């Protein structure tokens, strides 16, 4: 098993004719992902790497029975693209786009509130269930199928962690990048609840960073309701307050969002926090020990 995406996933790429959209459609196809359709308004009837392009998501669903979207649409139009996909009742929407105005995302999350659609991102690397499918931009070859779940606010930092896991022999069930923006579709807790029910998942790696209180909230949930081992890492222990560290969401402000507070909250919940990123793989192996993540 795995969560949210697997062999049954049929992807529509919104923004498929753009540079990034076209490049990663090729990469996803190479990984074995069923990219069944693309959408670019005004470019319906064309093909990208053999994938048929439609003008609307609705049309892509009617013709190709897609159930998952991967969005590469530029920031000014991305909010609309997410709502288009959600209105068409797609089960999972992955939004890669970086730089969406925060008030657009406030509207989007409000729209999604009473719907079953799961939004991952924006400003994220996407989601991968190794050996089954990848919906996103992460490099496929560093992953290996196994029992570790990974949930992260970051992109390349996640690759670093996954690479270490694979090297120490810990494969992954599903890896999710939830995104580096202040307002995102789903948080750590949303996915922890799914991993709790997933038989294949034996343990979870949680990668947080400075800004907001999502890690503290996750720690609280884990303490109360999550019994699989969790290993955490928090980026930005040396970040100065008041400066936005690349990600719009990575900023210490109003006394909130400090790495030390997050680490304290996680440790208080009985979670192993790896302070040294270089040794995270080893730490995970020690914690998982006899449980056997494979």
């Amino acid at each position, binding site marked *: 098993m795995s969560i949210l995406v697997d062999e049954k996933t049929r992807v529509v790429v919104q923004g498929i004719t753009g540079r*990034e959209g076209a490049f990663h459609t090729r990469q996803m196809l190479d990984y074995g992902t069923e990219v069944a359709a693309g959408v670019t308004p005004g470019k319906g009837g064309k093909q990208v790497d053999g994938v048929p392009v439609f003008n609307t998501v609705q049309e892509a669903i009617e013709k190709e029975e897609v159930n998952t979207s991967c969005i590469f649409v530029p*920031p*000014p139009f991305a909010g609309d693209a997410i709502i288009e996909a959600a209105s068409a009742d797609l089960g999972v929407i992955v939004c890669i786009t*970086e*730089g*969406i*105005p*925060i*008030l657009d*995302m*406030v*509207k989007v*999350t*409000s729209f999604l509130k009473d719907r079953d659609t799961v939004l991952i991102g924006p400003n994220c*690397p996407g989601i991968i269930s190794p050996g089954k499918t990848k919906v996103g*931009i*992460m*490099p496929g070859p*560093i992953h290996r199928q196994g029992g570790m779940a990974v949930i*992260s*606010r*970051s*992109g*390349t*930092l*996640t*690759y*670093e962690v996954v690479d270490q896991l694979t090297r120490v022999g810990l494969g992954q069930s599903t890896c999710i990048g939830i995104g*580096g923006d*202040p307002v*995102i579709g789903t948080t750590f807790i949303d996915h922890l609840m799914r991993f709790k029910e997933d038989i294949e998942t034996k343990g979870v790696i949680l*990668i947080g*960073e*400075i*800004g*907001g*209180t*999502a890690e503290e*909230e996750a720690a609280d949930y884990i303490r109360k309701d999550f019994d699989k081992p969790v290993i955490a*890492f928090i*980026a*930005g*222990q*040396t*970040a*100065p307050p008041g*400066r*936005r*560290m*690349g*990600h*719009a*969401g*990575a900023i210490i402000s*109003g*006394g909130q969002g400090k790495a030390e507070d997050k680490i304290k909250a996680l440790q208080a919940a009985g979670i192993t926090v790896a302070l*040294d*990123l*270089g*040794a995270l793989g080893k730490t995970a192996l020690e914690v998982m020990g006899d449980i056997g993540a494979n």
Partner: protein
Amino acid sequence: MKLHEFQAKDIFRKSGIPVPNGQLITSSDQATKVVQIINGPPWVIKAQIHAGGRGKGGGVKVVHYPYEVVTATEDLLGKPLVTRQTGPDGVIVNQILIEEGIKIDREFYLSMAIDRSRSESTMIFSQAGGMDIEEVAVESPELILKEHINPAGGWMTYQARNLIYRLDPPLLPAAVEELMSVMANVYKVFVTHDCSLVEINPLVITKSGKVVALDAKISIDDNALFRQKELLKLDDPREKDPLELMAEKYHLNYIRLDGNVGAMVNGAGLAMATMDVIKMAGADPANFLDVGGGASEEMITKGFEIILKDRRVQAILVNIFGGILRCDVLARGVLAAAEKTSIRVPLIVRLEGTNVEEGRKILRNSKLKFLVAKDLAEAAVLVAKQVSKTG
């Protein structure tokens, strides 16, 4: 993007939020004239810099004689102002706002921001005005009132009543009306200008019963600047570090820090984590630099030049986990930079991911001197060694 107080007050004035009469000056000769236009005494002299903590840092003065207006502005203009947010060097004061003094009856705190855990805009109101709101939040959280806003309906009048009718002692009906209008207008400003923060501290009721915003702080969501072209003109580059300005031009995420190890990384999370690794190795990062996912060769070259311009840098760590950014592009960018500027400090390179073999080969076959780290753990050890040698 941060706005200056006088810019925020201009927006307030146009949006129906009352502010004191005031005039901006850029040289102390202008002060004499301003005293004749602006009501006083007293007058309030306010240094216009982005950093907070101006009051305690000596950047806000209340004066009672016209000559004091002149001397106070002379004391501030062209000189660095140090506050708890500026760092030890302070920020040069280029502009001063001179305002009429206001007789205060009561002070409040009012702000609008995004509540991240609820993904909603939130109005925050407190009767503990004029104080450090972060301290109030810790010491007496019951004094902080919040109203979350549904984006479909926008700000509703009942929400203003929820906030205002909890005040003790209660306000007179006229002040209630004015405060309700200020709250509605703050929401309007927040939404129409794509703000990430609108803050008034203090928002006061004057002795004559009027509601006035004595201070004004506005930050604009950088992601929305593409549709806020008018606001872009309000950007003040003098407030930024010159290296940060140069980085901005090439779309690089660069933040100057206090240490001596330069770092070039792709991805914000990995860049932050690399800073942490440097610190744990016993050194201090000189910068945060995220070259981004799809960096070009030119961007890498520019990034490298920026790191080298920082004279404090004693070693450089390049940590790239290739995804979209290919390692061969990185390698060529570094070589191009090395051709233009001589690299005077030890260089440690850690490459992984897309096209890693090609990238390593390009570097190996060049004349560039560098140390290879096979993983992050080894990179940390090498950085520590280099810095202990030079330091």
